[in-house]
């Protein structure tokens, strides 16, 4: 069947956005986290917004089943937020759960069923012991063939990818370290981030603590020196080390979507959904080339077609840096850089906040944190703020921002969601 460029029956806009603080909060459950994001989203609408205005909830959540022994989060959340009897749908596509939930919210409005929809994402991860977190994340790969047989972990899969990428393109672990350094620099400007420190600040704090305890403090010259030291940056899944990996995080995010007509009731400057694309991929061993994510290439092409633009027109992007290598590959698969040039581009500052193509101004999954089910809509919260000029200290400056792109990856590329937002009408 020839692929047609889909045309939605109605345009959809974002009229509100909110984020909980990201981090580790032993006393907070998913309900508490989502409420935080929800309150901020309601308060963010230019002309006000009340719970009664919302007609449905689409909730991205990876596995409250395994993290909190709680399924059926949809109505549980609808009840907690005061939304009953509005319909509530839990969507699960691993770390892309809320990217996919957002897309279903867009389609639900386009279909004519609803005018105003709440989309959210939430994950409560930090109460499990770390090996159980490893097990739980690994269930997002093929748990029979990849996990039980091949003993792949989530970092392990990206370690395998990194081994192939570094070999093929002659890139080095240092290129990847530069991605982490950049994302921490951005995260340091994001009050909602899990890590609000640069890697240099983390290094200095660690040395200070060791000295205070009377222990011999390592003589780290700079961040790169720190990142090469296994005491500061141990290997997790070779060649990936601790600072190549996003952390385990509790957090939630919310967006309020409205049809183009309804959006005017809530916002002076709605941000429009220019494209929403989604593709599925197979097990890692089925990839024809370990250095490019097949489903992401498909989703990216569909997104650009739907928006009617080229990669060059994207002003900034939030990409799914669950691991540093994932950000590098995403910037290639999204067409920002040619295959094999993403690592060098990052190392040279092309994706820095003040560079020509800012990537992960929020701090990314690496520094902002990665509450997996909340990440997809969390990325869109950042784009919404940036496109409206409301990103505070980390606002991209010196140019008019028109198009922002978010790339949300589920598992190891099994789910790829690409969303393009546009400031102003088309």
């Amino acid at each position: 069947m020839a692929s047609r460029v889909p045309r939605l029956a109605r345009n959809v806009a974002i009229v509100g956005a909110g984020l909980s603080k990201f981090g580790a909060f032993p006393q907070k459950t998913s309900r508490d986290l989502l409420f935080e994001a929800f309150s901020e989203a309601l308060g963010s609408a230019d002309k006000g917004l009340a719970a009664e205005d919302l007609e449905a909830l689409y909730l991205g959540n990876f596995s409250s089943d395994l993290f909190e022994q709680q399924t059926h989060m949809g109505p549980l959340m609808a009840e907690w937020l005061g939304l009953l009897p509005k319909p509530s749908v839990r969507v699960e596509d691993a770390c892309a759960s809320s990217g996919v939930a957002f897309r279903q919210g867009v389609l639900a409005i386009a279909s004519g069923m609803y005018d105003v929809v709440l989309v959210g994402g939430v994950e409560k991860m930090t109460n499990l012991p770390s090996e159980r977190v490893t097990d739980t994340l690994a269930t997002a790969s093929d748990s029979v063939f990849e996990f039980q047989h091949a003993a792949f972990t989530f970092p392990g899969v990206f370690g395998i990818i990194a081994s192939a990428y570094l070999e093929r393109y002659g890139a080095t672990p240092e290129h990847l370290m530069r991605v982490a350094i950049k994302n921490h620099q951005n995260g340091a400007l994001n009050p909602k981030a899990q890590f609000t420190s640069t890697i240099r600040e983390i290094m200095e704090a660690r040395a200070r603590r060791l000295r205070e305890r009377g222990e011999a403090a390592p003589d780290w010259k700079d961040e790169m020196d720190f990142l090469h030291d296994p005491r500061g940056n141990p290997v997790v899944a070779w060649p990936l080390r601790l600072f190549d990996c996003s952390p385990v995080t509790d957090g939630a995010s919310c967006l309020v979507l409205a049809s183009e007509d309804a959006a005017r009731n809530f916002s002076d400057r709605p941000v429009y959904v220019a494209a929403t694309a989604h593709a599925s991929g197979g097990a890692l061993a089925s990839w024809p080339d370990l250095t490019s994510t097949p489903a992401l290439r498909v989703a990216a092409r569909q997104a650009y077609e739907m928006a009617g633009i080229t990669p060059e027109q994207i002003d900034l992007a939030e990409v799914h840096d669950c691991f540093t290598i994932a950000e590098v590959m995403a910037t290639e698969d999204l067409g920002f850089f040619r295959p094999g040039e993403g690592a060098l581009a990052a190392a040279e500052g092309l994706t820095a906040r003040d560079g020509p193509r800012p990537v992960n101004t929020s701090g990314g999954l690496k520094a902002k944190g990665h509450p997996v089910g909340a990440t997809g809509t969390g990325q869109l919260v950042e784009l919404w703020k940036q496109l409206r000029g409301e990103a505070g200290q980390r606002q991209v400056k010196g140019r008019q921002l028109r198009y922002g792109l978010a790339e949300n990856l589920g598992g190891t590329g099994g789910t790829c969601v690409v969303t393009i937002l546009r400031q102003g009408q088309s």
Partner: protein
Amino acid sequence: MTTTEEAFGVAAFQRFLDQRRLVASRCAHCRALYVPPRPVCPQCHGMEMGLQDLSGRGRLAGFTAISVPPSHMLQEGFGRDNPYLTGVVALEEGPRVAARLVGLEASSPEKVKLGTRLTAVFQEGERDGQKRVVLAFQPATRPKGRG
């Protein structure tokens, strides 16, 4: 014995391994091979699938040494000071397969080279008190009389 229908089910891969066989499905229409066997050809969507035993010979396409193992590998004694290797092997018949790697130095992953010739080994293991064979690959010994 497996019936034809069962041969393309999820449990088949383990049953073949228990017989020390590495088996692919083979599409009757486009002849594409896949491991583990599956009921639908990803290439042409055909549902007439046959089986083909593979040689178990291949080359290393990507790998990692895991220092933060999941529970089942912790139980096998792996961990921070005892990492294990796993990766993707490109089989000489074409398909790729995910599998553990043995006979290579997991504590010196920088010495492991992509492209290394490998051969399948069927390792006896145990999971939840039950015996089962796990697929792994080890460096191939160079066949005699060949360059």
